Structure formats: structure tokens, C-alpha cells
């Protein structure tokens, strides 16, 4: 947060390009063109909120009620929309992986890169509060990766992704996989500009995970039930787990996988391939407002 104005601009977030040699870059106020940090009260404090600031010309007396009607998430949503347009312009499929801590996101990504890396040009954005451990694992698996450390932040936000993309520079028709901070609560609220959220839940977490965190599961287009190799050792009612997921999110795809043995992962790779095909077809359609509307638009997503 910017201590002067109270805005949360990710000042404690660091972004490290592990592929380019691992030089840590302090985050925060390198996005000055958008967020004007001159805190002279006489000057206008410019934010990307997308609203006008009519007070510049009007002097309102005390007691005046100003109608704002603005979503608290508006700033993030706008930056996410900009990321999405940037991805679409490059026909890049972006997936946002969310789960509780330890459900197996990094293990899944490592294996996915090793086994399906020839089919897709994977690029990874790793989000953790601290350490570059997961980023290093991804680099070892063979994909370009940028590590975001959120410090005290418990989720990734769209402006962090915009800054990470500046480092990652994913090419045309690549697949960007974002590993969100292990947390099933707030990543549901913060759109990053992804095409789909993928929720990972492991069989060691209990059958009722989807019921306990319905926002996250409802936001997901795909639910991966991971660690199925452990089923013989657990008292886990897989059918109840699947029924609960179905109850919360009737339209999501659900796949059972093991990131360590590889069981079921073929279906996950096929899901990615199918998503890529659909996304690229949408992006290729001329003269439409959705993906592809800004095809080739050169604007960097950097906030």
C-alpha cells in the first residue's frame, strides 16, 4: 500500500524474472505513468478508477452527497480487462490456477511442462507470499517463469500480472499458466484477465471443500481433483466429493488426476488443447467485440 494516500498499489510486491537471471526488481511505484504519486493536495491525485472527478470544476458545500456507484473492485477489473485484451490480441490462452496451500499446483505445472511442453509453449507466473522455490521448480521443469512475491498479500491482483507480463513477454499463441497464492478465499474476487480459472482440490482435503469455498469453485471452469493415487490409503468418499462439486458448480468440467503418477493427466492436456483451439478461433474472428477485437493491439499491459 502507498502509505501517503492509502491506495493499495502493491508496493511490497516483488517480481523476479527467474529466466533472465533472477535479478529481483522492487515492485510498487514503477508504474508512475498511471498512478501519479505527487501527494500535493492541490494537485489531482490520478487513479485508474475509470470515473471522472467532477470536483475539479465544481465547489460543493458541506453536506453534499456525491453519488459514486462504483465497484470497489473496479480498478482491478479494469486492469484485468486490459490484460485480457492483451492476451487476446496475441491469441494467448491464460489459465489462473487456484487451490488451498499444498493441493499440488506446482507439481501439476512441473509435470504438465515436461509432458505437454512440446504441444504448447507454456509460460508461467508463480505467485507466493515469499520464496522463489516454486518458480525455481518451474524453471527446472523447462518453462520461462516469473516469480511474484506478494509479501503480506494473500492473492494476486491484475496489476501484478501486468507487470509480470512485461518481464515474461509470452509469444503469440503461447499458454500462460498463473499459479495463484494458495488460498481459496480472495483469489475468487480478483480477476487477473485469465480466460479460465482452474481450481485444484486434493483428496486429502475432505469431501466438502467445494461447499466450504463455493465462490472459488463457482468461478472455476475446470476442477481438478488431485492426488487420486492416495485414495487407497484414505477414508475419502470420492463420489461425495464429486457430488458436492457438481452441486456448487453444475457447469464446470471435473477431472480426476494425480500430478505425481500422471494418472488422468492426458485429459487435462486435452482440455488445454481444446481451450486453446476455441480461444484462438474466437480471437481470429474479425470485427467482434470479444477476443480479437484488439487483435495485434500493441499496447503493453503494464500498469
Amino acid at each position, binding site marked *: 500500500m502507498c502509505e501517503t494516500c492509502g491506495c493499495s498499489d502493491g508496493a511490497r510486491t516483488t517480481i523476479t524474472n527467474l529466466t533472465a537471471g533472477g535479478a529481483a526488481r522492487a515492485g510498487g511505484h514503477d508504474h508512475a505513468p498511471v498512478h501519479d504519486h505527487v501527494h500535493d493536495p492541490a494537485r489531482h491525485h490520478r487513479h485508474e478508477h475509470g470515473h471522472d472527478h467532477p470536483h475539479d470544476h465544481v465547489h460543493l458545500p458541506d453536506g453534499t452527497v456525491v453519488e459514486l456507484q462504483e465497484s*470497489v473492485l473496479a480498478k482491478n477489473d479494469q486492469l484485468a480487462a486490459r490484460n485480457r485484451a492483451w492476451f487476446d490480441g496475441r491469441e494467448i490462452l491464460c489459465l489462473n490456477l487456484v487451490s488451498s496451500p499444498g493441493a499440488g499446483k506446482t507439481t501439476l505445472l512441473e509435470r504438465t511442462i515436461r509432458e505437454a511442453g512440446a504441444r504448447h509453449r507454456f509460460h508461467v507466473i508463480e505467485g507466493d507470499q515469499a520464496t522463489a522455490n516454486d518458480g525455481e521448480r518451474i524453471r527446472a521443469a523447462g518453462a520461462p517463469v516469473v516469480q511474484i512475491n506478494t509479501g503480506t498479500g494473500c492473492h494476486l491482483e491484475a496489476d501484478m500480472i501486468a507487470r509480470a507480463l512485461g518481464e515474461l513477454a509470452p509469444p503469440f499463441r503461447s499458454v500462460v499458466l498463473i499459479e495463484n497464492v494458495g488460498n481459496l478465499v480472495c483469489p475468487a474476487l480478483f480477476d487477473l484477465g485469465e480466460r479460465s480459472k482452474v481450481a485444484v482440490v486434493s483428496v486429502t482435503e475432505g469431501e466438502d471443500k467445494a461447499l466450504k469455498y463455493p465462490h472459488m469453485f463457482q468461478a472455476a471452469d475446470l476442477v481438478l481433483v488431485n492426488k487420486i493415487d492416495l485414495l487407497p490409503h484414505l477414508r475419502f468418499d470420492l463420489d461425495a466429493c464429486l457430488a458436492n462439486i457438481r452441486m456448487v458448480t453444475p457447469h464446470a468440467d471435473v477431472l480426476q488426476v494425480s500430478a505425481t503418477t500422471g494418472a488422468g493427466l492426458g485429459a487435462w492436456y486435452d482440455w488445454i488443447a481444446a481451450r486453446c483451439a476455441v480461444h484462438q478461433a474466437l480471437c481470429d474472428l474479425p470485427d467482434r467485440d470479444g477476443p480479437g477485437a484488439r487483435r495485434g493491439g500493441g499496447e503493453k499491459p503494464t500498469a
Partner: protein
Amino acid sequence: MHELGLTREIVAMVAGHAGGRRVRRVVLEVGTLAGVMTDAVAFCFDAVAEGTALEGAVLEIRRVEARGRCRRCGAEFVRETLHSPCACGSFDVEGLTGAELRVLSYEIGAPEAAAEGQGA
């Protein structure tokens, strides 16, 4: 908790919009299924507002009831949770309201308490 970040966002948004003037009241609308704990927002608000144009301001939170429409039978009903089924048994429900998280309005002026203090 994300409520702290959201509260900072509320304060920054209103302070930015008010363009340097004091703000004494903020009206926030939060749906019952918005995924936000209103108690936590109220708890953080005073501390986050301190030292900003909103210092001492009153935060009014209006809850919005969550309603949904069944995609199978078309019935509309109040949703207790995101997975409350329709009376017909279907879980396939389209959310109509309940996800709101919006600043509705704010009121210009020094906080009431400060104004009274000056008058006395």
C-alpha cells in the same frame, strides 16, 4: 484477510474522488454473497481512514439480499448460500443480486464530531 485491502481500496477511491475535500460519511453496498465480511471492513475502516480525507468518517454498510433464478424452472428465490437449491431441486441457479460490492455515495464535510467540537 482481503477485507483490509478492500477497505484501503474504498478509502483511496473515495479520497481520490473527493479531490482533497474532507468526507464525513461513506455508504457502501455489500451483497450477502459478495464474499466479503462486512464486520471486518467496518473493523478496519477507522484505522485505514486515519490520516486521509476520510478520517473520522462514518461508514454505513447496506446489505443486499441475494436472489437467484432457477435455470430449470425459472423460479426466483432468496439464496442463503451460493449453492442453495431451488425448491424444484435444481442447483443450477443464476445469481441476480447478492454479489454487490460498491461505494454508493459519500458526503462532503468534516466529521460531525469535529464540527461540534469547533462550535463549542
